[in-house]
């Protein structure tokens, strides 16, 4: 009686009146076939709750069909041999597949290595797992857990031992010993701290933060080192600009962006009236949020946009923050045009560029830096 209900419902039993399937087949099941009653019952079926059951299954619960065993052995062997195939393929690919950059087919090098290594590893791995599942004897066994907590006697003895040892040191009575020990050990803990000093050049920290590479009269160079002239840009153009000082191209805090727009669109305050020239305006690109370069410029909306955390700045209005986590405007570089028509900086930025820090003042006057 171990067929499932469904199995027995499928095939009409011998004492059925009809044969050959279809709806007219009569069920051979009778009400006696059911061990329990029905869905109305408020008591559970006549089933048991095995208590403290040893869940051990006898070793012969899977009668080993010799054919099945042989099939399993062959499968495991084949999987292990697959590993050999994989390694051979790997070595062959390693040597023979084109590897040099630009050679025809070199883009297949790494995929070939990956495929064959995966093949080899799968062979060994799957072989081991199939072996364990189909051929090894894998009965469920039980082990008892012991109490993790030690018994009270043990605990008491340990506690007593510690207490006794502590008393033998004499510490409880000798407060001078104890206090000086604590003081000495505490002092030792401070020993590593002086080693931190020369980790970084922290001299004049706030001055370093407040200055960039721009100096009064620095020409504005583009990324290829050419000075930018009035007339180079059209309305709607942008140019990355760097100070004309040694190493200016690489200075992390000096990079700026020159934008040209219609002059009448600029809404600069009085104090910054002469910081822009004929609609040419220059802002620091170091985002005041976390320092990413704010290089995205939308020509029609005049928005500057930072790709890292999506702060939006209004280029017509002193790079005021319109959206996003940045809390301050981008600093503006005051520029002028020299006699030859090249753009020059009037001086350094009027405030520290980049993200905020504790020592940064509340506000900075619109006075060009030196």
């Amino acid at each position, binding site marked *: 009686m171990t067929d499932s209900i469904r199995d027995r419902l499928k095939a009409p039993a011998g004492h059925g009146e009809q044969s050959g399937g279809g709806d007219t087949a009569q069920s051979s099941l009778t009400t006696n076939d059911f061990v329990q009653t029905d869905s109305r019952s408020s008591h559970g079926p006549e089933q048991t709750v095995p208590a403290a059951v040893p869940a051990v299954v006898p070793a012969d619960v899977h009668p080993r069909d010799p054919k099945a065993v042989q099939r399993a052995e062959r499968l495991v062997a084949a999987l292990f041999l697959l590993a050999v195939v994989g390694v051979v393929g790997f070595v062959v690919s390693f040597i023979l597949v084109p590897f040099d950059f630009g050679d025809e087919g070199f883009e297949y090098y790494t995929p070939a290595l990956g495929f064959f290594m995966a093949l080899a590893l799968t062979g060994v791995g799957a072989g081991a797992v199939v072996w364990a599942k189909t051929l090894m004897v894998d009965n469920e066994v039980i082990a008892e857990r012991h109490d993790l907590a030690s018994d009270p006697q043990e605990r008491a003895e340990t506690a007593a031992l510690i207490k006794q040892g502590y008393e033998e040191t004499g510490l409880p009575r000798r407060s001078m010993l104890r206090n000086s020990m604590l003081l000495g050990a505490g002092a030792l803990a401070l020993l590593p701290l002086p080693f931190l000093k020369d980790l970084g050049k922290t001299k004049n920290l706030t001055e370093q933060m407040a200055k960039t590479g721009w100096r009064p009269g620095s020409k504005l160079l583009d990324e*290829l080192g050419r000075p930018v002239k009035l007339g180079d840009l059209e309305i709607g153009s942008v140019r990355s600009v760097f100070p004309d000082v040694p190493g200016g191209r690489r200075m992390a805090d000096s990079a700026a962006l020159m934008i040209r727009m219609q002059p009448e669109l600029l809404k600069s305050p009085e104090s910054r009236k002469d910081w822009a020239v004929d609609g040419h305006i220059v802002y620091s690109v170091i985002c005041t949020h976390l320092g990413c370069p704010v290089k995205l410029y939308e020509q029609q909306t005049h928005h500057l946009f930072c790709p890292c955390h999506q702060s939006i700045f209004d280029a017509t209005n002193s790079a005021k923050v319109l959206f996003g986590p940045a809390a301050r405007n981008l600093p503006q570089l005051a520029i002028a045009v020299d006699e030859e028509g090249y753009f020059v900086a009037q001086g350094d930025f009027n405030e520290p560029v980049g993200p905020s820090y504790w020592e940064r003042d509340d506000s900075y006057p619109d006075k060009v830096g030196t």
Partner: protein
Amino acid sequence: MPKTQRSRRSRFSSYAALLLALTLVGGLYSAFGASKVKAEDGANQSIAVKEGRQLYLQGCSTCHGLNAEGGAGGPSLIGVGSSSVIFQVSSGRMPLANAAPQAPRKKAKYGAAQTQQLAAYIQSLGGGPELPSGRLDDGDLVLGGDLFRTNCASCHNFAGRGGALTRSKYAPALTESEADEIYAAMQTGPENMPRFTDNQLTPDEKRAIVRYVRYVTQEAKQPGGAGLGQYGPVPEGLAVFLIGMGLLIVVTLWIGARA
């Protein structure tokens, strides 16, 4: 003086005076006469402009005005140059199908020849940026990469796969852009893209950038397997869960199942 001698001289001098006058007038006219189209093959060019005008009137004038002066639906095209037309029309952005925060790329409505005609017409109206002759994609690859990273990657992503701008606008992917489109886009600064004059990026530098863009979006064979879209770490993270953990969970189900 005898009468006959005098009349012969005066007849001769009047003919000479007439000839001189005609030569003078003819020469002056050739030298100073207004010729709007200064093309090499003047005849072909004016045909292109004529055809272009017809195409314009049919397909563009509703929004851009009968004389490209602008209208309710579109800005003035005077002075935008043939480059603008080549960019907008060959990428299919124009004619605009319906209003959107940004004109999307789509299948071009006009073929290459027609696009050239439209471009010639618009150029004839007020000048503007034009594509240089010769190849546009044979610049220095290394220089192009460096310039691309400084000027373009911040909007278009390191591999030209595009990026987000504010409020539904976007810097499009460059994977389908032809060389002339890329060059023209740099020159003209379509929609919110800034423009890069020849004084900012010389034609050689523009060609270098075009070369790099074509290389990184089309030519380059990517080593190391499938690129996962080249959007950076986001698809990589998705892949490790979907493919890596997915496969491994299937494996653990297999191992853990008791037959």
